[in-house]
């Protein structure tokens, strides 16, 4: 989380905002939840996956989780995955499939 406390921003007056819409902190894109833009949802089949990590490299939103040098079981960070499908397109063994948001997916409730 950003060091910058914006929890009560909704009540700020014009004079309380930082000059010229500057954000007085770096690395704040983590706090900007963009997962809501997603219309397609990726699913990784762990049986097919060979752990080549290519999807982790190509994801433009760094939304694929890795733990112990392996794709994590809890693969996708849906706070930031925008459903672009790049990972599914690039996976050499077609272990990732894309389905419309709201449909029933294996392993997704």
């Amino acid at each position: 989380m950003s060091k910058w406390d914006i929890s009560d921003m909704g009540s700020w007056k014009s004079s309380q905002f930082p000059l010229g819409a500057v954000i007085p902190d770096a690395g704040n894109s983590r706090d900007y939840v963009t997962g809501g833009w997603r219309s397609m949802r990726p699913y990784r089949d762990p049986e097919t996956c060979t752990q080549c990590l290519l999807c982790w490299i190509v994801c433009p939103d760094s939304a694929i989780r890795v733990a112990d040098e392996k794709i994590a079981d809890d693969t996708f960070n849906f706070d930031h995955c925008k459903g672009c499908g790049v990972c599914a397109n690039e996976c050499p063994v077609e272990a990732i499939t894309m389905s419309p948001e709201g449909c029933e997916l294996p392993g997704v409730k």
Partner: protein
Amino acid sequence: MPEQKTVATTGNSVVAEAFRQCAPDVVPAYPITPQTTIVEEFAKFVAQGRVHAEYVTVESEHSAMSACIGASAAGARVMTATSSQGLALMWEELHIASGMRLPIVMANANRALSAPINIHCDHSDAMGARDTGWVMLFAETAQEAYDNTIMSVLIAEDPEVLLPVMTCLDGFITTHSIDRVQLMDDESVAGFVGEYVPQNALLDTDNPVSHGNFAGLGGPYFEFKRAQREAIDRSKAVVERVGKAFSDLSGRPFALIETDMMDDADVAIVVIGSTAGNVRHVAKQMRAEGLKAGVVKVRCFRPFPHAELAAALSSVKAVAVLDRAESFGAEGGPLYLETRSALYDLEHRMPVVNYVYGLGGSDVKLELIRSVFDDLSDIATGTPALHGPMYLGAR
């Protein structure tokens, strides 16, 4: 007191001299007539090692102002110059510079806008940019262009302001004519403008910040615009304060509006830029012939000095506003609209008439100005005022 030397030179050369003396860190620039010799001279100063600035040659004015914005956000003191189509090409960046609250200083050599193409003086370029959030100063002479440029740096960088400043001088008339100018010594100018201490500099890696952010629907965009309005309102006192300090240093007067023969004036002309000199000259002639004529010159157009203008004009019987720019479809030119609005709150409102003059550098002959005073004299004695704008001297 500073050492001052008197020279005979052009407006552009003294603006370049002022740039050098204010020691900008970065000057991104693109040439355009009649501004070119400003950046040409400045480039020469850089080549000679007489100023240590990063001089960035860009491929357009769009890029020039973009580079200014980047450099200013990085924490540099930034200056540039443009004119006419160049200013028009900067349009979106003008808003970004003011919205990001970047204290960029830009000289603008006032020139007509195409079409038809024309390289000569009028104020259409600057007046077109009057709502972009920049503080705007206008010079009558090369001396004022020099003085305004130096003052602009302090005004822009004032913590109460932090807005870009445009310092305008009339194309060819002021930019290229040889004029008598007093130049200050380098140390005095350096001492006056001081060192720039940027806020939120991108190059301050100990305090990383993010510039150019998003404030969309439901976000605080509206509040940021309000903050900008408050800043330009505050800038009025800062322009006055800096003007006073510079006036004390240089011995030359400065005011948001400059009045001549207004104490007992019956009629007055409101004007901006180089034509003020002609108007003053004719006003003196009219006085000799018995008409109590006065002149009000607006030197600071943004923020507009409404109260000062109303006070200066409160007891005259008729006012003429000379606009060297159009506001097509409006009731009159930009200066007229501001002036009429400023006078609305007066207890006794007088007739205010509008003349558009000198577009595309068309000659502003003394007899044309005389005809305006003649009209005013008639209106002051009961002739109904004509609805304008009237095109002064146009066939």
